[in-house]
């Protein structure tokens, strides 16, 4: 908690900078609107204005700067506009009982969350099983590990549209499965790497001790290697769930999805409604924060129960 004051002040500076940046970003559309409304603008006409810098425009037309803070389709919305839009599409919708309406961000966030969790589960399972195979088999270690690294240098977004097309062609309805595959693809790698480290973390001495107890492979796995890897697992899960969310949103961006936060961003772009894009972005950020925090809490509880000193 000792970081609260610095973090809050840095956040305040960021919001203030955002708010100040709105004026130069929006001055051109603001002047266009003011001119159409009959106000006197220097210089006249939007074409001659194109060659004048935004700073000079702001100095010459101080009266119209305020217009930029209240545009319907701003280039850069103010923080309060985004907050208002966010409230209109979440809290206000819930209050009106339209939580699951297609216009409600709660609905879209839920769609995204579902795919994220499916992808997260799939990716984590693949990661853990892969790590066990790698730790116990030299062949797997030598042949799979390099490809796991290479798989992460391939930009998944290039593959994303193909995954969607292929899964569509082989008769999988809807976007859920391909999105989950994409997020699993991004999510499995941190889990795999950390679990390999974690399963190998017991020292030779500890393994030898178990040998003197005459344990077999299963027992030494469940009583020593697996518990020893739990701290590593949780660290990876925090990275993994954030990566899974990124994967889902990437899966929603290309080729015409209709529900999900990524689709909101896409639709907001196509219909020229920047407020929808910004509110979907903030919503995605809140979702990411909530998921990471959730795993962090789980980590603390689990590790304390297991007797790790954290």
């Amino acid at each position, binding site marked *: 908690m*000792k*970081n609260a*004051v*610095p*973090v*809050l*002040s*840095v*956040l305040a500076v*960021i919001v203030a900078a955002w708010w100040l940046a709105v004026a130069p970003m929006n001055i051109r559309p603001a002047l266009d609107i003011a001119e159409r409304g009959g106000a006197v603008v220097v210089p006249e006409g939007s074409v001659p204005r194109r060659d004048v810098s935004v700073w000079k425009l702001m100095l010459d037309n101080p009266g119209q700067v305020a217009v930029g803070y209240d545009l319907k389709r701003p*280039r850069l919305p103010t923080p309060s506009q985004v907050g208002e839009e966010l409230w209109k599409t979440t809290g206000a919708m819930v209050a009106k009982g339209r939580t699951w309406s297609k216009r409600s961000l709660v609905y879209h966030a839920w769609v995204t969350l579902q795919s994220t969790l499916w992808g997260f589960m799939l990716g984590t399972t693949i990661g853990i099983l892969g790590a066990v195979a790698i730790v116990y088999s*030299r*062949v797997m*270690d*030598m*042949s*799979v*590990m*390099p*490809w796991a690294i*290479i798989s*992460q*240098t*391939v*930009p*998944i*977004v*290039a*593959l994303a*549209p*193909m995954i969607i*097309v*292929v899964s569509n*062609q*082989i008769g999988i309805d809807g976007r859920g499965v391909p999105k989950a595959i994409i997020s699993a693809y991004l999510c499995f790698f941190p889990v795999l790497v950390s679990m390999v480290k974690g399963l190998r973390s017991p020292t030779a001495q500890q393994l030898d001790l178990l040998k003197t107890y005459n344990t077999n492979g299963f027992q030494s796995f469940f009583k020593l290697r697996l518990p020893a890897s739990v701290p590593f697992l949780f660290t990876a899960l925090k*990275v993994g769930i*954030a990566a899974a*969310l*990124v994967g889902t*949103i*990437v899966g929603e*961006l*290309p*080729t015409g999805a209709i529900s999900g*936060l*990524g689709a909101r*961003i*896409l639709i*907001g*772009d196509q219909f020229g409604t*920047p407020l929808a*894009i*910004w509110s*979907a*972005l903030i919503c*995605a*950020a809140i979702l*990411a*924060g909530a998921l*990471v925090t959730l795993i962090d809490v789980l980590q603390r509880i689990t590790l304390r129960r297991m007797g790790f000193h954290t």
Partner: protein
Amino acid sequence: MIWIVGMMAFWAAAWCINVWLANSAHAEKRAVRIAVPVLFGVTILVLWEGLVRGFGVSQVILPPPSQVIVVFAQSMDILWIDFVQTVLKGALRGFLIGATAAFVAALLIDRSAFLTRGLLPIGNFVAALPIVGVAPILVNWFGFDWHSKAAVVVVMVFFPILVNTVQGLRETDAMQRDLMRTYAAGYFQTLAKLRIPAAMPFVFNGLKIATTLALIGAIVAEYFGSPTRGMGFRISTGVGSLSIDLVWAEIFVSALVGSAFYGVVTWIEKRVTFWHPSQRG
């Protein structure tokens, strides 16, 4: 049928060879360490080829790798234009700008303990966010050409590099800094001779993460509007017009570029941080 049987036979043979190689006395040799994963990769390609041909999968759904290679060779000119547009103009410029900006910002932040404590948690949080989503906004601001792609890349690579560099700059311990003081070294000398070299393993960690992000950013930004060239443009239009083999050729290029980019950064890392325990041995 012959394809399936052949594929299965190849799979079994390759697996046996790999098992034998990995458990043989030569397993630690460099050639074997490379041969085993290469054989594994070839097996996957053979499986893909065999499955597609054996089951007669339509080329519109999944072309066999051999055909992808043919298309790759035939459309070198298109692929080159896309490569220049997306990688050289968008991703690389954005990467350089973003990495430089993040490095300089980290040096400035590092001067103030207050800023470090305030920005590290925020930077860590932002680095975990789905920043790709800002792509449509930046395309709207900077236009369709490579500027907007570079801008998306800058935003995406900035925070991972910033966070890692700030963390790396805190890596030196009090003893080492005290030693520099006894040498009467000033702030900049300590920075140049002790703290930046000590931070390098962390910086490269961030740079390696950023290589993939740079390509992702450049390609995604093209989905939201681009001139009629670029890898993302070709992929999104190729999916629509069913020229799937060209899309796979683009994916192949992006895989090559991604791996090469990562490889180059790793190679530089080896030269720069040769003293670090993880690089020795």
